[in-house]
């Protein structure tokens, strides 16, 4: 019998726990209010930077930046899993119903290992290298060694842009290694003296060497003047006209302060407000 009493005494405690847990959940949900930005892993580091800056100015707002990829980000906007989708490629025809704003432009740089003597490729050479027709560095005037191709995976915005700008109708060689992020490609190329790959220009650092294309270096001047053509938009995608917090964040991103920040990180800025 005493045991029975004990159990009854415990009941309110259980109840209390239960209530506490529920309260905690509700509390968490309230804290979660804010906006979610999801999509391209190329845009992600820049969006994180912008979000940090934005939150430091608006301490009561929360911005959650997630990766996942351009296509996943656009999907997430459609299903309302995210308020803003990030895309590192133009919208496809069946995505045109969404509202897209270019927040900056980014160049794609073809990179090799710093030990590689090559500085320059023509677009045609690049196409032949990445389609697997040129297989050896000797054919490009470097010491003979098989070329190690490094590509992004299918579906990646960077890969799709590269396909559009460089490959045209040619297919990327199946022999190629595949890595699932800009960082992973940079890692492989920086370790392998015979590798060649492509990443977002903003992420090129001393570990790798960005090639010029037909004598045109990938730098801000050449990108802004339109000479360097491997340039793609970074988009924020919305389901319809942006409203509320999402709009405030977008306005911040397009403001001179934020644009300056992006340009410091190596992106080409768009100073025009949306719709113009």
């Amino acid at each position: 019998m005493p045991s029975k009493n004990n159990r009854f005494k415990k009941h309110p405690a259980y109840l209390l726990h239960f209530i506490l847990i529920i309260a905690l959940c509700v509390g968490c949900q309230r804290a979660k209010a804010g906006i979610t930005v999801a999509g391209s892993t190329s845009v992600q580091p820049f969006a994180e930077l912008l979000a940090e800056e934005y939150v430091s100015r608006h301490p009561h707002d929360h911005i959650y930046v997630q990766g996942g990829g351009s296509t996943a980000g656009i999907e997430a906007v459609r299903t309302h899993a995210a308020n803003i989708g990030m895309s590192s490629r133009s919208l496809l025809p069946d995505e045109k119903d969404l509202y897209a704003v270019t927040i900056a432009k980014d160049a794609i740089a073809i990179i090799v290992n710093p030990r590689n003597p090559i500085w320059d490729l023509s677009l045609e050479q690049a196409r032949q290298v990445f389609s697997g027709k040129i297989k050896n560095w000797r054919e490009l005037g470097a010491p003979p060694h098989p070329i190690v191709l490094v590509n992004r995976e299918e579906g990646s915005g960077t890969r799709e842009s590269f396909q559009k700008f460089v490959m045209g109708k040619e297919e990327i060689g199946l022999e190629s290694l595949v890595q699932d992020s800009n960082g992973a490609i940079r890692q492989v190329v920086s370790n392998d003296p015979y590798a060649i790959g492509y990443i977002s220009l903003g992420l090129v650092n001393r570990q790798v060497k960005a090639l010029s294309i037909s004598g045109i270096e990938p730098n801000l001047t050449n990108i802004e003047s339109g000479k360097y053509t491997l340039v793609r938009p970074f988009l924020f995608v919305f389901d319809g006209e942006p409203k509320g917090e999402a709009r405030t964040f977008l306005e911040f991103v397009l403001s001179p302060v934020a644009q300056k920040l992006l340009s410091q990180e190596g992106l080409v800025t768009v100073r025009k407000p949306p719709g113009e």
Partner: protein
Amino acid sequence: MSMEIKEKIIEKILLLVALSSITVLALITFFIFEQGLPLIWKMGPKAFILGQKWIPSKGLFGIFPMIVSSFWVTFGALSLGIPLGLACTIFLCEWTPPAVGMVLRPAIQLLAAIPSVIYGFWGLVVLVPLVRDYLEGPGLSILSGSVILGFMILPTIISISEDSLKALPPTYKAGALALGATHWQTIWRVLIPAARSGIVASIILGMGRAIGETMAMIMILGNSVKMPTSFLDSARTLTTNIGIEMGYASGDHRQALFATGIVLFIIIMLLNSLAIFLSRRRTG
């Protein structure tokens, strides 16, 4: 009376909890098949499983190179893992002084506790450059992947085959020794054959672990989608195909990844059933 009712209630609650874990398995199975099967029917099972080309942007979904790569990597891992694992097991059971065993056993268990991303990172930083510099190719290769996987499956092989050796009646050993066999003859001719089914089961479970490993393989294999022709080639296994393309896939491409999951699921199910069958035969 009330006690009995309480017992019943507790029993039912536990049953419910136990069932919920099976429900999760059922749900996972259901969703993988529900998402993946339509694509397999659309492509035709033969074109999907035996297709040589995987170019999602052109609607080509052939996973044969990945099935082959999965088995290459697994075979490579087993050819390192089995000899090492068995040698370690025999040493642990028969020769290890208790003090050494106290250190060795937890150390082997610790191998299982290291997250696979750490194995992958270690492979990428240490093993891959070695393969690239001293052999040839990009270093991101089946060989590097196999070596890493070989170590990753050691705990599975060692712990299960050690259990099966220990479960043998002590009379086997005593009898063999009494008949004049040496220690090694006893191990090789009596103990190992007697524990054979358990050892084989441990190897098959290790194989399942090897086929299922994803993270470390994404980092080490190089992920190119082509038929492997040598151990120095880069390759993509079934798991890494899902892992690497998950984020960006939509539509048919996404379904094709689920369909890859179905094939993987079936392979793993077959391996596990085989392991269960073999380890039951011992007792039966």
